Every structure is written in structure tokens, then in C-alpha cells.
């Protein structure tokens, strides 16, 4: 049996000449996002895009540093709570509400990350999960989160004071811009010298240490970046869908983002986006099978881990011998 392990082995051969596959794929993605709202419900697209950004943020850790965070719902969910609270109770405009959410996620990511990077591998996953569960209980008990009801009827407001987000297409355009900005930022990070060090840590942490890199600092910065972007995704979702609820901080949400990334392809640039669209489409269009969704997700997990470890984009990239 071929030993396919994108977690520890680079997914694609290093590009030698100027590689046009990534820019072309990016152009295709932008084109699809421009045309899509005329054919598909904008609400579905917005939901998928928020999760796509969430999955990209998660993939920054697992795909490029080799750290499996099993508690990313913490940043996604708490950012959505704070953004919703800021917009509804404090009357913040949407851009400041989203920033509030992102700042919350960054702060939480700094604390949780500093604790979690004190252990490696499997323990790292368990620590992030446990910390997220702790904050789930806080969300359950805190007054401002509204308990089981969540924060409902969050106003979308006016972006920069004059762009009315009440219009569905305007809101969609804003979500697309936020998603693309996040996507390009992650792309920039992983192709920077900083990103190269991250990959070195993934391949062989001991060697990176012996070369003089303070790997803990690199891991922590990557963790905070990932948490912050997950927060941007959660805050945007709270504004676009006008609700923040317990679902978004629950461990099942942490599991879902892992699933999206796994389906699309760990450590690929476009994989998490495709994975998010596949999983969200499955949840929306297979609602006949509503009560079976968890079971189906479980089956996909088992299938991907056993037979499909490269994921959709990883397999395509492997077949075409390109980087995606």
C-alpha cells in the first residue's frame, strides 16, 4: 500500500519553472464567486465562504505547521458572540464589530496557543479541545451570550456609515471581499520566509531548533494568526446571518472544520475552500437525510483517513503534478 501522508510529506513536487497553476486557479475561483450569486442562493454562498475562510485559517496550522487544533470553534464562536454583541448592544458599525470579534479571537488564541504549544502532537490536539470545551461552558453560563437562545436579530448596519448591508447582494459582495482578503493574506504568509520556517518546523522541529530558530515563537505566532482569521470568519458570519449561537462554539463545530479541510486536502491552498463548499452543500441540499448528517460526516472522516488522505484538491494536484 502506498504510504500517502500529506501531514508529514510535502503534497506536491516543488515547482521548478514559474508555476502558473495557482494564479489560474485563483482567477477561476474569483470568476466563480462573481457569477455564482446569479445562479445559487447568496445566503448559501455566504455561509460557505465564511466556513471556507474558517477552514483556510485552520489549514494554516495543520497544513503548514503540522499542528492539529481540535478546538478552533473557540475562536470562530467567541468572535461571532463578541461581534454580535458589539453590533447589537454597543451599536458598533459592522466593520468595527468584525474587528472586535477578530481581536477577541486573537486574545483567546494568544492564551490558548501559549498553553497548547507546551506539548506536542496528540497532546496538542487534546489541550486545544479541552480549552475550547471550557470556553463552551463559559458561553453557556455567561449572561450576554443568551444561553440556548444565542444573540438573535443582530443588525447588519451600514458599512463605513453609507453602504447598507440590508441588501443581500451588497452583503454578499462584502463577504467575498473579506474572504478573498483573508485567503490572500494566508497565501502571503505561507510563501513568506516566515512560512518557510513554519514548514521547516512541520518537517523536523528538532532540526529547526538546532538551526537557531525559536520554534515556540513561530508556532505561537502561527497559532494567533490562525485564531484571528477564524475569528474574522466567525464575526463575518454573525453579521451576515444576524445570529450568534452555541452551535458555533460547540466541539462539533471544531470537528466540522477539520472535516472540511480533510475533504478538500490538508496542506493545499485551495483544498479548504472546496472542502467547505462540499460539506456546506451536503448539509443544505441533503436535508432529506437531516438526522443522518452526523453519521454521514463520520463515514466521510473514516473514508478520507483510510483511502483519500490527499483530499479532493490534493488528488487533482497530484494527478496533474502541479501545486494547488
Amino acid at each position, binding site marked *: *500500500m502506498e*504510504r500517502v*501522508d500529506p*501531514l*508529514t510529506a510535502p503534497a506536491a513536487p516543488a515547482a521548478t519553472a514559474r508555476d502558473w497553476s495557482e494564479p489560474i486557479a485563483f482567477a477561476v475561483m474569483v470568476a466563480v464567486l462573481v457569477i455564482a450569486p446569479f445562479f445559487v442562493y447568496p445566503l448559501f454562498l455566504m455561509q460557505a465562504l465564511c466556513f471556507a475562510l474558517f477552514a483556510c485559517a485552520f489549514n494554516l496550522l*495543520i497544513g503548514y505547521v*503540522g499542528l*492539529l487544533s*481540535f478546538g478552533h470553534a473557540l475562536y470562530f464562536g467567541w468572535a461571532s458572540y463578541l461581534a454580535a454583541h458589539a453590533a447589537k448592544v454597543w451599536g458598533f458599525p459592522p466593520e468595527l464589530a468584525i474587528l472586535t470579534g477578530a481581536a477577541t479571537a486573537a486574545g483567546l488564541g494568544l492564551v490558548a496557543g501559549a*498553553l*497548547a504549544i*507546551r*506539548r*506536542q*502532537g*496528540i*497532546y496538542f*490536539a*487534546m*489541550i486545544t*479541545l*479541552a*480549552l475550547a*470545551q*471550557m470556553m463552551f*461552558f*463559559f458561553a453557556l*453560563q455567561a449572561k450576554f451570550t443568551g444561553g440556548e437562545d444565542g444573540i438573535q436579530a443582530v443588525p447588519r448596519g451600514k458599512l463605513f456609515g453609507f453602504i447598507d448591508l440590508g441588501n443581500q447582494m451588497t452583503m454578499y459582495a462584502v463577504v467575498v471581499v473579506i474572504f478573498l482578503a483573508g485567503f490572500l493574506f494566508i497565501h502571503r504568509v505561507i510563501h513568506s520566509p516566515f512560512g518557510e520556517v513554519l514548514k521547516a518546523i512541520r518537517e523536523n522541529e528538532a532540526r529547526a531548533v538546532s538551526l537557531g530558530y525559536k520554534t515556540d515563537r513561530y508556532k505561537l505566532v502561527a497559532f494567533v494568526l490562525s485564531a484571528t482569521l477564524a475569528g474574522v470568519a466567525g464575526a463575518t458570519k454573525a453579521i451576515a446571518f444576524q445570529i450568534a449561537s452555541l452551535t458555533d462554539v460547540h*466541539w462539533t463545530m471544531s*470537528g466540522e472544520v*477539520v472535516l472540511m479541510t*480533510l475533504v478538500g486536502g490538508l496542506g493545499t491552498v485551495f483544498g479548504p475552500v472546496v472542502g467547505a463548499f462540499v460539506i456546506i452543500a451536503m448539509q443544505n441540499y441533503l436535508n432529506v437525510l437531516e*438526522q*443522518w*448528517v*452526523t*453519521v454521514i*460526516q*463520520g*463515514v*466521510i*472522516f*473514516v473514508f*478520507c*483517513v*483510510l483511502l483519500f*488522505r490527499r483530499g479532493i484538491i490534493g488528488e487533482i494536484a497530484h494527478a496533474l503534478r502541479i501545486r494547488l
Partner: protein
Amino acid sequence: MFEIFGVPSQALFGQLLLGLINGSFYALLSLGLAVIFGMLNIINFAHGAQYMLGAFTAFFLLQYVGLGYWTALVIAPIVVGLTGIVIERAFLQWLYRLDHLYGLLLTFGLALIIEGVFRNYFGSSGLPYQMPEALTGGQNLGFMFLPNYRAWVVVFSAAVCLTTWFVIERTKLGSYLRAATENPTLVRAFGINVPRMITLTYGFGVGLAALAGVMAAPIYNVSPQMGSDLIIVVFAVVVIGGMGSIMGAVVTGFGLGVVEGLTKVFFPEASNTVIFVIMAIVLLIRPAGLFGRRA
């Protein structure tokens, strides 16, 4: 009746006992996780689901076959352990040469499947399970009332933990196990069937989870999600204790249960989160865990 720090003794010892009970389950489950991790290098995310399977097996045995608690205590771990052996042969054995994280992801998927299926057929509300006839009632100890069944759970799980420790640390079979954990290739060269040992170890660990499930059935209701929240707490217990030592897992499990019980008395709002807070503190002071060796 007397008071300690303004808390009636009845309430204090009552919560302490509840803490010991929870601690019994933490100890049994983290023991199983540690045994499995030692041999398979896999964190068994399905452990909570398998604990739930144990409780449901006991429920089915009573409901449809008419076999009571004592039979279930023997049969349920064997049946669920056998399903564990099937899982190891069908899925886990293909992952040993890959990154550890794939084992976590696969068993997480299995947990979703098992819990999802049970939720579809049995809903989210709990099903009651009859306490065994012989253990109803309780003793009045003067300072508190001790229900017989709860005393039985604490004593029996402590006995199971000690037996497991004895088998692994003090017998020939255990020495094979420990040797195979350190260096499987070498142990194989001595003619010991290591893959079979791995399979049986997983079956045993899963059986322990099922045993805990049967014991939990009369105390908590039998419900599909009884294991999922519990397993996350057990993960925190494992992080605190470190998985390097069997005794460490047991002591940490019981100890944290007691601490949780005390928190319920003095600061009830924090009782859900106290174990996670302790985990954070331990990570700050002793990153390798209380009984762990620095890797």
C-alpha cells in the same frame, strides 16, 4: 450533623462521594486511553462512544433478553471489546505507520457514526436502567448517608484499576506488553505475535470503557451522548496525568473527581470547568504532566 467551613457535613460528604464516583469513571476511561495509546500510539476518540455502547448493551440485555446487571457486567465488556477488535482489524491497523493524528481523526469519525446512529433510534433523552436488587438501599454512617450502589462503584472500579496495573506492571504478560511498547520489532524477533497483542490490547481498552458504561447505567440515564462530553474531560485528565504511567492515570482520575466534587460544594459555578483550569495550571508549571516524562 455538623458543619465544615459553613457547609453541612451531609452536603460536603455527599459531593465528595459524587466526586469519587465521577473520579472512578475518569480513572477507568483514562486508564483505557493510556493502555491503548501505549500500544497503538493512537488516541482513541471513540472511547466515549464505546462507554455509551457498554451502557446500551446492558440496557438491551435487560430489556430484550432479561439478563440483569451482574450478567451485563461480564457480557457487555466482552461484546463491546469484540467490536473494538473488529475496528482495529478493519481500520486502525492501516494507520500505524502514519502520523498519530490520523488515528485521532479516524476514531473521531467512528465516534460520530456510533453516536449518530444511536441518537437516530433512541433520541436524546435518557433511558432509565434498573439498579441491581442486591445494591439498593444504603448505610447511615452518622455523618452521611452512603448508598450501597455508589460504594460498590468506587470499590469495584478501584479494584479493576489495581488489577490492570498489577497485570501490566507485575506479570509476564505485562512485561511482554511493556517490551512491545518500547520496541515492537525486537519483541517480534523473540517470536511473540505483536500484531495480535496490539489487537487484543485495543479490545481490552475498549472493554474497560464498556465496563465503565455498565457501571454508569444505573446512576446516570443511558443516553446516546452520555460519552461525548465525558471524553473531553477525560482528555484533560490524561493531559494532567500524562499517559506514561498506569498508576498516574488512575490516581489523577480519582483525584480530579474529588476536586471536582469539592468545587461543587464551595464554588458550584466553576464545577464544569475546574478540571480544564487545573489542566491549564499544570501546563504552566509542569508541562509534561504530573506523572509524565519529558518527551
